[in-house]
């Protein structure tokens, strides 16, 4: 079973992926799929509008380069602004995780006797 991704989460995943180095769109899609063990099902096409939006915001930068097989592909890499964005999204993610973790672990409070 796959899980549909939220828009904001997709940004975080792409930024995180690119933090290891430049990669083309297909590579990003494949890497996400492999890392998550096919749990997160990204509809591959929806990756691209996210990439373009992030490029417009100046978080990532695109350049054409040749792949190992000698084919032209558009490579994306993080900009300084993108690194900052990644850091703040990670922090937000951690906060959210803790909050959800507490909710999940919570036990019902004792009720006052009537």
């Amino acid at each position, binding site marked *: 079973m796959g899980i549909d991704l939220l828009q904001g989460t997709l940004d975080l995943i792409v930024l995180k992926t690119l933090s290891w180095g430049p990669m083309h769109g297909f590579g990003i899609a494949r890497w996400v799929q492999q890392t998550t063990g096919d749990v997160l099902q990204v509809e*591959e096409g*929806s990756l691209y509008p996210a990439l373009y*939006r992030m490029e417009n915001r100046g978080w990532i930068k695109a350049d*054409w380069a*040749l792949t190992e097989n*000698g*084919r*032209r592909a558009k490579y994306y890499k993080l900009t300084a602004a993108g690194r900052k964005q990644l850091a703040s999204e990670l922090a937000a993610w951690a906060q959210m995780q803790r909050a959800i973790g507490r909710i999940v672990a919570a036990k019902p409070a004792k009720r006052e006797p009537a």
Partner: protein
Amino acid sequence: MTGSNPDRTAAWRRYLRFWRANPGGDVRDELTFHLESAVEELVANGMPVDEARAEAARRFGDVTRIKSALYTLSEQRERRMARHEWWHTIVQDLTYALRQLRKAPAFTVVAIATLALGIGATTSIFSVAYTVIMKPLPYAHADRIYTYSQRNGKGSMCCLPYGNFYTWQREASDFESMAATSGSRAFTLTGYGDPTPIRTRLATASYWRTMFIPPVLGRYFRDDEDREGGPKVAVLSYALWQNRFGGRKDIVNRAITLNGQPYTVVGVAAPEYVMQKPAEILWVPLAAPAWRFNDFADHELSVYGLLKSGVTPEAARRQLETIDTRLAHEHPHHAYDGGVIPMGIADAIVGSQKQIVYMLFAAVALVLLIGCGNIANLLLARGNARKAEVAVRGALGATRGRIVTQLFIESVVLGVAGGVAGLAVAEAGIRFLVTSPAALPRLADTRLSAPALLFAIALSIGCAVVFGLVPAIRAARVDLQQTLRDGGRESKGAARARLQRGLVISELSIAMVLLIGAGLFIRSSMQLASVPLGFDTSNLLAFDIVLPPARYDSSAKLEAAFTQIEQNIAAIPGVRSIGQTNTAPVRGWGTDWTAFREGSNGHDERSTDANMRGVSTDFFKTIGLPLLRGRAFTAADGKNSARVAIVSRGLAQALYGDTDPIGKLISNGSPDKPQWMEIVGVAGDMHASGPAQEPPHELYMPSAQWVNGARTILVRGNASVQTLMPSIRRAVASVDPLLAIVGAQTMDETVQQQFAYPNFLRWLLTLLGGTGLVLAAVGAYGVMAYLVSQRTHELGVRIALGATTGDVRGMIVRQGVQLGALGVIVGGALAYATTHFAASMVYGITPRDPITFAVVAAVLLIVVAVAAYVPARRATRIDPLEALRAN
């Protein structure tokens, strides 16, 4: 990540991207790569190709929708980048321009200084023009206020009789209000320092309603104060209040003494009411006496009307004319019906001064244009020197448009820098003009205002276009290969030389126009200065004495006091003779009134306007005015003797033609109540209103028979009259120590003051013309020097072949003079076509005065010859061998 075999399409597209981004292609390539990679992966895992394609497409999602979303996103990006790039380019060009200008400091300083002077001068004259001509008048309904005069054959009569005015005011329904003011005479203010004459205007109470600006203090007159025998009230001008009364607020409702009588100050007028010097004036009610309502003869009042809104000036004029026609019918021997001329208040105030302002504006603009010509010349020369730089930029891929923009931005930077520096010049110029003797209404209010700033900005950029665009386009039209091969050295300069010659000819012709303008004014003032005034102004001293009516309450007392003063002064050693009059020529206007002979109705050919002068017996002798016929007045022409008069030659001619006027009767004032006087003499004409005006008609009466309490005393000395002043003061004080001597001045000084404004204009135009000439000469020199430098080789050959230095110099100077001659022809034609605008501003010459044209042409040719001679001499000094090696 590197490969050896990039596919062709992409390479081709990459090439395209060099020119322009191709977002559509990029999106397609990217998605194609993705899908193909996915298919390859699936096939590698053992899936058949067809199935793999379907699977890859399924995983990808809706390709068409995503593609269109990506197009939109990339277009947004491209647009933002284009904007960014545009700014970046401008900033880059500006930086580059500044760097280039810093590298040529001499050029930059000369260009900016030229522009600063030109733009500054033009902006200051613009500020004057704006304030004097364009700025709306301060009155509440200025667009509906008109002044009215009566048509008089060819022109207009300035003023209207009381009868006409009051009938108009009563009956003309097209007007919200109508007002009248009468002349300006001096009232003597006492009690605040020395007795001082203050120019005073008589105004109807409606004057303040018709031309309303709220008072600074108190109020204006009321209708019940504007009647015969009404309370004596006065309104002070703002400057009078500030300067004489220290701006004290408690002046309102206090009494001040004018002509020995108490007047209550009711208010202080808004400063805007005074548009011309002197600013210290006051207003008192016109308070027309009853008999004036039936006076249809004496043209005395300036009339203003405020039209009701929606009434056309034309309709109002017809209404007034209808009334005039009826009045002429009712008073056939008096009222005049020649038509009414309305004039908008703005035109009436600025009047002929408009032309002077426009002329000055044209003059400074022309100087600026010559300056721009010089800068264009310098830029052309620089453009040549920078050929290599431009060629390299071109070779590196800059388009011609880009290079033109770049070079033009340098000009704009120059223009703006010149403009900013010009603002300081403009501010100084305005201060100078405001304190100058120029008699322009509202001149004192001139500021470097917002419109002037806008004007300066527009002018700066305009100048940049004028001097920068052509050199920039030319510089960018560089033959790349040729220039690079030459290593940037000059190849063919023929086209540039042609352009430079054209520029210099334009500069010279503009200078010609300017100089002819200045020349006309110089000639005109020479003509004016050579006009004999009709009397002798040398060693003639004049001053005013006013006997306060409170203490000198009878004509006998007045006459006795003046006689005593005259005798005391006559006894001073060095005084040759002394005369008295109510107003002296040139110093002040005469009292303009109607003079007529027997049988006249006051409007026919038996009557005419004339100045009335009451004069003492020695007046003619003292002032040096010749008596052409008959006799002067004598002591026998006393108060109780037969009434006698002397007429000027012009008045005699006007009323009696060629017949001898001696013994004829003449009268002044109203034909209803003639005061007949027998003419005993004819005096010469004199330019009593200044040399530029025709001599007015003069009617002289013995001061014993036409007694005035305020007189001008004229003293003729043997030598310098100014040294006599202390003795004269003592002589006057011995008669009455409280009397003030006012406005003591030699007649020569008074006449000089008359010339102050025309002299100032002449000086200013000469300055501008001279500046234009110098700039044009510098331009001519620059071009000649360039042309000579181009021909160093050829000149060397000529000299080597035996031409003398004289031959060579002559040849170069001749070429310079040819340029000058073209400039003279073009400029002369321009001047010939335009100077008639100055017809009303010059005196004694036509605006196409051949002498002026000839002298200016000669001056210009000589200057150009000199400008050509300097480089010619330098060129012929070079060793011929050196010159031959120059190429």
